């Protein structure tokens, strides 16, 4: 009995001694799919290898829509984690205004983020009143059309090189029993695809003007009428894709049951896992082949105020680690996203990723919708477009009228 007690005391002492050197840092994120989990494990490995701290993984399944409320309620409720992942942009705006997140400017200055982060708009999205509150870790872009080469071979057609050819090829696909286009039932996919049509067919400037400046006249204008026409074409093309999740929709393209899908560059992870090769099995068209442009959204880590000096030191160490060159390479190769610094070498990147890097290098970039819209506005757009794409009885004109209302009332 006595010896057990001694052992217990000893272990307690050891634990107490251990905590002097390093902190356990709980990091919450919603990266739970195969490729995502592998990518975030790279962060954990680098963080533990380069510092003495311990990464406590706080993955929340169910995607951003489920994870964000959980994270926010923990922060507001006074039980903040060490660090958490959000998308770039306005999602964390109010948390920053309420003083719940830590100012990380000192880390950014020490590490020289101003000089290395490319494009600089990523850092701007982290900046409020001249202070930097987050560490951007990757760039994801939405403007990609993924096409199944086999589906077009089956109908003796050339693989389309742009949106119009794709639309023209749709009837033949339909006749061959192939759904021309895959679209999952989740609301964000519908509004996401529409925003891509808008950014490519009407141009990035139009999107910037409508979402950035809330220009309701532009939203009601001819350019947008054409986008809504294209969206109603798309609605006919997606009839029959009875799936919910985005990766199930991507899977329809991988298995050649659907001709193509508009989805962000994270879809290429699914193609890679299925062993497909870019160019022979599938084709990717950045900017729908209409205009070569990619948006620079992505993920960033934020650090809540904890008032605990040890945790703060660990937070600083994590922020610095996230942007180190080797961390960036290891993480982004697994995640299928682009690194936030242009001075790292992604030799093993596949063709589609290289196309993305080229466009990024040429500077043909646009802000992500998340940077321009609040979640409230995004939610309204989700409601509108998920209804529009699933219910053929809503005319393009009606949808545009509702779109104008949302733009006019946005903040």
């Amino acid at each position: 009995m006595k010896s057990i007690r001694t052992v217990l005391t000893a272990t307690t002492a050891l634990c107490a001694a251990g905590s002097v050197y390093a902190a356990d840092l709980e990091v919450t994120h919603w990266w739970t799919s195969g490729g995502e989990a592998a990518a975030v494990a790279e962060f954990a490995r680098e963080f533990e290898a380069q510092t003495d701290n311990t990464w406590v993984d706080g993955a929340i399944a169910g995607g951003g829509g489920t994870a964000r409320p959980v994270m926010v309620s923990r922060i507001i409720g006074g039980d903040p984690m060490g660090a958490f992942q959000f998308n770039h942009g306005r999602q964390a705006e109010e948390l920053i205004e309420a003083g719940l997140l830590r100012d990380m400017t000192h880390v950014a200055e020490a590490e020289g983020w101003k000089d290395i982060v490319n494009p600089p708009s990523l850092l701007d999205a982290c900046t409020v009143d001249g202070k930097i509150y987050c560490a951007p870790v990757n760039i994801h872009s939405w403007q990609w059309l993924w096409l199944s080469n086999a589906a077009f071979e089956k109908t003796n057609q050339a693989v389309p090189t742009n949106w119009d050819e794709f639309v023209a090829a749709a009837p033949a696909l339909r006749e061959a029993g192939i759904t021309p286009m895959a679209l999952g039932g989740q609301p964000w996919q519908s509004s996401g695809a529409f925003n891509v049509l808008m950014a490519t067919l009407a141009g990035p400037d139009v999107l910037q003007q409508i979402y950035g400046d809330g220009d309701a006249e532009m939203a009601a204008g001819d350019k947008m009428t054409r986008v809504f026409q294209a969206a109603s074409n798309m609605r006919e093309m997606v009839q029959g894709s009875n799936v919910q999740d985005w990766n199930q929709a991507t899977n329809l393209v991988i298995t050649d049951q659907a001709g193509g899908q508009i989805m962000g560059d994270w879809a290429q992870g699914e193609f890679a896992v299925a062993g497909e090769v870019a160019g022979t099995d599938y084709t990717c068209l950045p900017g729908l082949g209409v205009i070569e442009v990619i948006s620079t959204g992505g993920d960033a880590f934020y650090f809540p105020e904890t008032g605990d000096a040890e945790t703060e030191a660990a937070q600083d160490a994590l922020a610095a680690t996230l942007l180190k060159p080797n961390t960036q390479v290891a993480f982004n190769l697994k995640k299928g996203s682009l690194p936030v610094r242009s001075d790292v070498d992604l030799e093993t990147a596949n063709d589609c990723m290289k196309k993305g890097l080229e466009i990024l290098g040429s500077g043909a970039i646009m802000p992500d919708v998340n940077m321009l819209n609040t979640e409230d506005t995004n939610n309204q757009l989700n409601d509108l477009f998920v209804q529009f794409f699933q219910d053929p009885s809503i005319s393009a004109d009606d949808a545009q009228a509702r779109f104008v209302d949302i733009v006019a009332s946005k903040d």
Partner: protein
Amino acid sequence: MAATRPIRLFRNISAKIAAIPMILTAMVVFVGGTAWTVTYSFTSSKLLPKAKFVGLDQYERLWNTPRWLVSLENLLIYGICMMVLSLVLGFVLAALLDQKIRFENTFRTILLYPFALSFIVTGLVWQWLLNPDFGIQSVIHRMGWTSFNFDPLYNADIVIFGVLIAGLWQGTGLVMCLMLAGLRGIDQDIWKAARVDGIPSWKTYIFIVIPMMRPVFITTLVIIASGIVRLYDLIVAQTGGGPGIASDVPAKYVYDYMFQGQNLGQGFAASTMMLLAVLVVVIPWAYLEFGGKKHV
């Protein structure tokens, strides 16, 4: 020394003390929380509650939102059908079980079993059963009737009935049990008297037994109604509100705007409207039920 009259407040003092925590909880959590929610529904609160009042703006936006109107319509359809069908089915099943049949225990267990499942499980089970590629439709196609078409979850016009099927499957067993308990509470002499008078048994049920079962019906109605108003998990598990927004319900609208949309004000306004709707039904009923008793 004359005995002082006991003060009324101190009668049953221990029982009153025991009730204090519950009373406090009810006052603070229910009444206080409700008042707070209603107050903040008049503000422009986004992610965090802020006392910046904007009058009826949130309500104006709410009633101009097609999704809210769709969700109300769905709740109305679901509510009326659920109320009527589960009462009718539950009563008929109970009446059938009451015929002193063999294996009554077995049947009762089978019928009550779905109620042991959560709405999430129920929703998932019926999502698969109603999936045209895997469920009922494909089974019947394989049996040879290929023109058979039954995919309510993928048809925006009838999706709410697909949800209703699952809801009925889950909830009818409980209604049946309550009804059966009510039927067993009816004195056998009444049946004997009715038989002596030569009244057919269906007439006995409708004109004698059902009026006598009024308290059971009211209990059942309250249970069903509360289940209808808080309809949320079944929708999330079975359809996710889809296709599009065709199977949305008010509770889901509230959750989506409060948490995902980071717009507390809008969510509060919607939940206040839900509260109002419940009060409109409950207050007249409570008045009839409890207010009238004084005169009896």
